[in-house]
């Protein structure tokens, strides 16, 4: 959505006036803004506009000045224009009706000679977001997509994004423009188009296929914002088309992990939260289950390696230099491509650039680290050598420090851990206690991962515990104990991996109970003591003493410690050897007694519970025999074992469910799927299209690169990839025809017979084409003198009149004109259904627009209604009424002004009676409020109401305007520029007709036939006057290029002339490419009429 380099020239014109606007910002209201806006001087206007901007910046609503501002849009001063545009963009949506006033100026600006003005006009038009204007913008966009200025084309691409937002239903038309712009020469335009593609049709990956190679080549030259988006698009395309790469890191990483993990397999290895490749794939790719085995190691559908597939090679090749970009976003996008598609040995190259961004773009650090974390979890070896880069900076925010710690923990290896520990020791002295606690936790994770350092870690942690406990005594600040608690937690985690070998640590920890006063820390140590009281050789020896100590200190403890003492005592008893049992029982009984009298009911509860569940204690406590419950004893024992000894589920198993998102995405940073997040497409989901493509690519590759932009632009997207081969053949064919046309006769035949280049053409086209060529050759031999054929005298013998108008001169082809009057065509008006008999008790109503002109009002359109009774009963009292009050519609349609005075419908009669099978005719004059919206009618019949909709046909909102060719061309010249719209379409009707005609008899009639069939089609569907039909005179009979029809008409409501021109291109034996053009002063009407004409031609 955004470009870059305002440092370029475009903004530099403002630089001269710097630092002068402070008073405007501080006190924008100190002058009368409306007066200034109405001033004749640009300087005053400028001043007023600046004040308005200042008010907008301060959050004041200044929309009420909209009309006064809008009229300044016509100002000649670029500076004023620019500021007005800024204002317009801000308020247009709020003040739609007033904003419409500016449209004509934009239209005019669109044909300005200054590309900057054109671009601004287009940008603002697209930006003001009015639905009414959207069709106009669409036309403007199509036109500007072929603008000579690259800057304008680029703005066109950005306008597409806005249009998509505004008229999502027009996606097809927008896609077409995207396609055209993708083949642009200028990298800037291509980049902007990538942005447009992403918002217009992000899933339309087949569209990419024909541009893929060029996109890759252009990639380094486009703007960095667009690079980020384009990289993503081509990555998705390659995956959708070719699938994933077998030797890529995400498949191989599990292997390296295993080999690394197996060497030092530790039970707690999973605690580091390493991510397996399966999880990664599962998270990256949609419909993952469809493509992969459950095992994940083998991919059933992809056997591709990165070196065997050309597209993958190209993808990697074009993205790897981008790792040197100055934009960290581009670097990350390029790195993601490598992460997903590159073979393992190439993956190393992403490491340096990624790490460099941590230094060079400090703002990107946090996001970058989040992504590195995922990389490092999957493939720790990648970053293992670069641990220095993750050393903490003093100025880092806390979250960044935490991320770096986590990464350091992930990538620590036997060789790097000494250096990392040195660092950790410094971090422990950091003033930020929270960070110190995190460091302590990280130490534990490292120790669990690398058993060789366990002892060192424990030593360090123990001394930290002692040190911290000594501090805690003297100072009491909130959170001060966090480090101590975390240190003990870390010790606990390390000890858990192998309690027996760490018993000395436990002993030392337990002995420090004297010194440690922190309740949380104490309870933790007591838990450790209880848990491991029976392990090893030394601990059991000190157990009685410790237990006594705990019992002695019980009353002085806080709640959580008391609970832990009870637990620990219970555990000791369960594990205790026989010789100490009695002693322990006594202590236990004492503790329970104390607890039973505790003030806190939690403690009393726990005491009761413990005494119940440990039968031998209960004896002592209650002092009476409990032999009656002896049979329960076993059960209690088992219960106690289960409760106190049972293995705890690993807390880290949860981490496997933690979701991963695509690298570089917002979701990866916020750790939830942001709206609009899409996974990678399913591998090889584009396969079908891909198959049909394959042949084209092989054959057409060379000629495709030679063909100019215009060539590829002419093939519409709809025909797309499948059509590619067709257009390929077509274009070369056309080239051949073109050369035929201009070369002289001898040269031409010589070419065809001797020149090897021409033979290449012949072989490249299909069989039918060669046959046609033979025919061409034949005809060229017959027509011995081409110049004679083109000469005037020859033409005059064949045609009624001589072409003599200036327009034709520029076309450089000989054209003949066929004069056919309107009457020579049979008009077959189309019947539409107004009322279906199934819904209306057997009354069928059909309607057709008639060419009659209403005598009542020029706003009325005549419609012939055809009633038929298809039921067996009589129908009576048939009449029609309008459902809408006249002129109730809002003023959306400016063309129908004064509509309030005209009745909505006028009927010439009513039908009293309609017998079965009887038909009747009626003329309805209707006043449509809009060219496109249907008129709601009610048909009354037998006293019943039947709702019906009368759909307007814009082609009958005009009446024939009789004029001759010179008048037509004269008028057309007046209506150039803004008033001219063109669209391309194809015409196929003539092909069916040809099937009925034996073409060997009269091949000269082909063009005439085409001309006639199109003219009759238009005339039977639109109320227009055929001015002329121009036929091309080429000696290639088949060539219909240059065939031209002209129709004239007059808009009923406004009496504005409306001229239609249709020009053909191509061969009569194929669907013809037509360009329809409408010239009309009434822009919205003209546009809609054009759409209608195209619809008539195509269907």
């Amino acid at each position: 959505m955004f470009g870059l380099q305002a440092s370029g020239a475009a903004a530099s014109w403002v630089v001269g006036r710097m630092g002068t606007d402070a008073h405007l910002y501080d006190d924008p209201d100190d002058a009368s803004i409306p007066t200034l806006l109405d001033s004749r001087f640009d300087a005053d206007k400028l001043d007023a506009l600046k004040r308005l901007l200042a008010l907008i910046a301060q959050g004041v609503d200044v929309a009420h000045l909209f009309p006064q501002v809008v009229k300044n849009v016509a100002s000649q001063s670029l500076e004023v224009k620019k500021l007005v545009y800024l204002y317009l963009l801000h308020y247009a949506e709020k003040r739609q009706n007033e904003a419409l006033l500016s449209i004509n100026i934009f239209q005019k600006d669109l044909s300005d000679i200054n590309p900057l003005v054109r671009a601004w006009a287009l940008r603002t038009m697209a930006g003001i977001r009015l639905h009414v204007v959207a069709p106009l913008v669409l036309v403007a966009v199509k036109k500007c997509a072929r603008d000579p200025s690259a800057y304008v084309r680029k703005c066109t691409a950005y306008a597409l994004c806005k249009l998509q937002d505004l008229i999502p239903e027009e996606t097809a038309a927008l896609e077409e423009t995207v396609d055209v712009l993708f083949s642009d020469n200028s990298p800037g335009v291509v980049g902007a188009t990538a942005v447009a593609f992403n918002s217009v049709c992000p899933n339309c990956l087949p569209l990419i296929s024909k541009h893929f190679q060029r996109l890759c080549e252009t990639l380094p030259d486009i703007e960095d914002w667009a690079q980020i988006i384009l990289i993503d698009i081509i990555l998705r395309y390659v995956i959708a088309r070719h699938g994933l790469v077998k030797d890529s890191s995400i498949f191989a990483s599990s292997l390296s992990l295993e080999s690394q993990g197996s060497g030092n397999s530790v039970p707690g290895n999973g605690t580091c939260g390493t991510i397996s490749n399966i999880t990664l794939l599962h998270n990256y790719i949609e419909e993952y289950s469809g493509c992969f085995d459950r095992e994940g190691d083998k991919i059933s559908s992809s056997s591709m390696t990165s070196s065997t597939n050309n597209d993958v090679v190209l993808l990697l090749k074009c993205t790897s230099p981008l790792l040197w970009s100055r934009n960290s976003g581009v670097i990350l996008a390029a790195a993601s491509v490598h992460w997903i598609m590159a073979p393992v040995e190439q993956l190393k190259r992403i490491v340096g650039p990624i790490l460099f961004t941590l230094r060079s773009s400090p703002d990107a650090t946090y996001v970058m680290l989040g992504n590195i974390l995922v990389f490092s979890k999957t493939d720790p070896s990648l970053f293992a050598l670069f641990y220095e880069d993750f050393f903490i900076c003093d100025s880092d925010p806390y979250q960044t420090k935490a991320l770096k710690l986590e990464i350091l923990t992930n990538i620590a290896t036997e060789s790097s851990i000494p250096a990392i520990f040195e660092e950790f020791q410094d971090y422990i002295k950091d003033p930020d206690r929270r960070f110190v606690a995190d460091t302590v936790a990280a130490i534990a994770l490292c120790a669990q991962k690398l058993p060789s350092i366990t002892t060192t870690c424990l030593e360090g942690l123990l001394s930290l515990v002692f040190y911290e406990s000594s501090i805690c005594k003297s100072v009491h600040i909130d959170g001060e104990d966090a480090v101590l608690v975390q240190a003990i937690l870390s010790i606990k985690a390390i000890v858990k991996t192998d309690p027996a070998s760490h018993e000395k640590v436990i002993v030392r920890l337990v002995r420090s109970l004297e010194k440690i006063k922190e309740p949380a820390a104490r309870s933790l140590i007591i838990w450790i003591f209880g848990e491991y009281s029976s392990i090893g050789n030394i601990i059991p020896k000190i157990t009685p003493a410790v237990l006594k100590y705990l019992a002695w200190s019980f009353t002085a403890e806080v709640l959580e410690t008391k609970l832990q003492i009870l637990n620990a005592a219970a555990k000791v008893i369960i594990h205790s050897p026989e010789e100490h049992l009695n002693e322990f029982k006594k202590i236990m009984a004492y503790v329970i007694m104390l607890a039973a009298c505790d003030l806190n009911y939690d403690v009393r509860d726990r005491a009761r519970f413990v005494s119940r569940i440990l039968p031998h204690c209960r004896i002592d406590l209650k002092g009476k025999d409990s032999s009656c419950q002896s049979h329960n004893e076993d059960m209690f024992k088992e219960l106690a074992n289960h409760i106190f000894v049972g293995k705890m589920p690993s807390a880290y198993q949860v981490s496997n469910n933690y979701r991963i998102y695509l690298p570089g995405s917002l979701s990866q940073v916020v750790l939830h799927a942001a709206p609009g997040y899409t996974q990678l497409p399913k591998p090889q989901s584009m396969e079908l299209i891909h198959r049909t493509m394959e042949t084209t690519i092989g054959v057409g590759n060379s000629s495709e690169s030679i063909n100019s932009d215009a060539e590829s632009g002419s093939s519409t997207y709809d025909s797309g990839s499948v059509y590619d081969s067709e257009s390929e053949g077509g274009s070369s064919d056309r080239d051949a025809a073109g050369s035929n046309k201009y070369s002289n006769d001898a040269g031409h035949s010589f070419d065809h017979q001797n020149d090897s280049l021409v033979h290449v053409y012949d072989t490249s086209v299909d069989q039918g084409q060669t046959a046609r060529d033979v025919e061409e050759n034949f005809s060229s031999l017959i027509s011995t003198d081409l110049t004679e054929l083109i000469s005037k005298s020859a033409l005059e013998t064949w045609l009624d009149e001589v072409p003599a108008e200036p327009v034709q001169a520029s076309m450089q082809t000989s054209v003949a004109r066929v004069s056919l009057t309107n009457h020579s065509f049979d008009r077959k008006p189309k019947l539409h259904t107004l009322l279906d008999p199934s819904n209306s008790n057997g009354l069928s109503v059909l309607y057709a627009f008639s060419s009659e002109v209403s005598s009542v009002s020029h706003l009325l359109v005549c419609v012939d209604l055809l009633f038929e009774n298809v039921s067996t009963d009589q129908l009576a009292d048939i009449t029609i009424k309008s459902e809408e009050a006249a002129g109730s519609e809002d003023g959306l349609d400016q063309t129908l002004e004064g509509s309030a005075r005209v009745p909505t419908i006028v009927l010439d009669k009513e039908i009293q009676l309609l017998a079965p099978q009887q038909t009747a005719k009626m003329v309805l004059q209707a006043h449509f409020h809009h060219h496109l919206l249907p008129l709601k009618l009610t048909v009354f019949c037998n006293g019943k109401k039947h709702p019906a909709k009368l759909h307007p046909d814009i082609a009958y909102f005009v009446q024939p305007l009789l004029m001759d060719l010179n008048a037509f061309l004269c008028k057309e010249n007046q209506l150039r520029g803004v008033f001219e719209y063109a669209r391309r379409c194809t015409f196929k009707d003539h092909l069916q007709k040809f099937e009925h005609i034996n073409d060997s008899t009269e091949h000269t009639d082909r063009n005439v036939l085409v001309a006639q069939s199109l003219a009759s089609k238009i005339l039977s569907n639109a109320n227009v006057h055929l001015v002329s039909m121009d036929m091309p005179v080429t000696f290639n009979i088949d060539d219909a290029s240059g065939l031209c029809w002209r129709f004239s008409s007059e808009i009923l409501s406004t009496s504005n002339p409306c001229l239609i021109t249709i020009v053909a291109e191509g061969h009569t034996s194929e669907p013809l490419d037509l360009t329809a053009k409408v010239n009309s002063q009434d822009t919205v009407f003209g546009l809609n009429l054009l759409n209608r004409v195209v619809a008539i031609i195509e269907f």
Partner: protein
Amino acid sequence: MLQCIFLLSDSGEVMVEKQMTSHRVDRAICGWFWEYVLAHAGGDASKVLQVVVSPTHYLFQVYRNGVTFLACTQVEMPPLMAIEFLSRVADVLIDYLGDLNEDIIKDNFVLVYQILDEMMDNDATASYVPWRTTVVKDASNEVYVNIVEELDACVNREGALVKCEAYGKIQVNSSLPGVPELTLSFPNPTIINDVMFHPCVRFRPWESNQIISFVPPDGQFDLMSYRVKKLKTTPIYVKPQLTSDSGNCRVNVMVGIRNDPGKPIDSITVQFRLPLLIASADLTANYGTVDILADQTCLWTIGQIPKGKAPSLSGNLHLEEGLTHLHTFPTFQVKFRVMGVALSGLQVDKLEVRNTPSAPYKGFRAQTKAGRKRCTSKFIKEHHGVEDLPVACDARRYDEPGVVMARFRAQATPPGHGQRVRPCLRLWQRGRASGRARTRGRWLRPCQGVWLRLRTLSPLRMCRLRFLRPRLRASPLHFSTRIHYFLCPQSSIQCHLLLPHHTAACACPTRKSGRNPPRR
């Protein structure tokens, strides 16, 4: 895609609001954001993460010079794109406005609006070379190359060097007509670990030959940045000692030169945050000044290390009641500058200019940049080195009101092609050379020196020194060389090396007013 951009002042006030899409973002989001800043970072927006999730929007923020650039979106988009965009906006604004703060934004809000508008929607001249306007008018036919390096070093408690790397930028200021082709090469490119290029640099030549080939944009830009890792030593050492005992902590910090780079080291400062739980501090230094700043930071400004004296800072920190020992140790940050040396050892071999309509112009300019804080475990050293000029000179500046006196020495081996240089001092005011105020020295052979004295009546803004060198016929470059030194009060020396145009009208590289005014 981004929906809206806000510029917030230091106090959370919305200065500029720029909506991009129809889905308007209410200003209330800024209020929410500022609450968040207050709650999570104590009102310091620079400490807030770049990506913040609010209940209604995803926010991206970049903080520069007291101005917060805030962008909102509701849908997925590459976060780095937003962040890079905001920082680019900030850079462009700084480029246009010279600096950035609340007042400057308000003074130029129309300009800010227009820049935002153009950058957000699209811009750039879509010429063949997108970063360069096709027609560069009134180019003065000069190009300056400028290497600035920063040294990041970490020294741990034992005094061992944990990490030491140089982060460098090659800045180019080009003012060349037409579409010039420049090639820059290094004699020792292999020492470079990581690189990052301006879009104008072609990737191929670098990939194959480690040569930088580019068509420069007009004006100043960063051609490349690079990193040289695993350096062995830092030029100065800092030895802090903290011993705490019975509620008292004795501090002693020594600073000295470890490894003489051969050029004077100046602007040395040592900075550390006083630990919490300090009742009072009593610190003095035998050289330089010691300040305790508001945020409990002790700043010791040394400047240059004097000869025959080792600067040291010593004193007592009195701990709070009940505390006998200090259990957190502060990090010491050291900043200093070395002129004329690139500690990474990177050198520029040559700069070739092709495809200019007239005789090609080129030059080098070295400039010293202010420091930036860097990381540490125990203390940090920072260094900003300046690459030696190909034509190197040694210059000292002495000034008194209205008088400039400078002593110049030709280097032992003046690089380039001539044996002799002749300094020529000329006063420049408001970007123009004043006619009479100039002096010219005699021709200097290597190691010879000369004093030049220049008297002016008006307050001295800037003067420029130019070195004349004899024309060399045998030289492959075939033109004479002049060096320009900018001299201005309280500043280091900036050098220009010009290889002038054949007209010899050696225009000063005046800049468009307002864009990067030569400021100190």
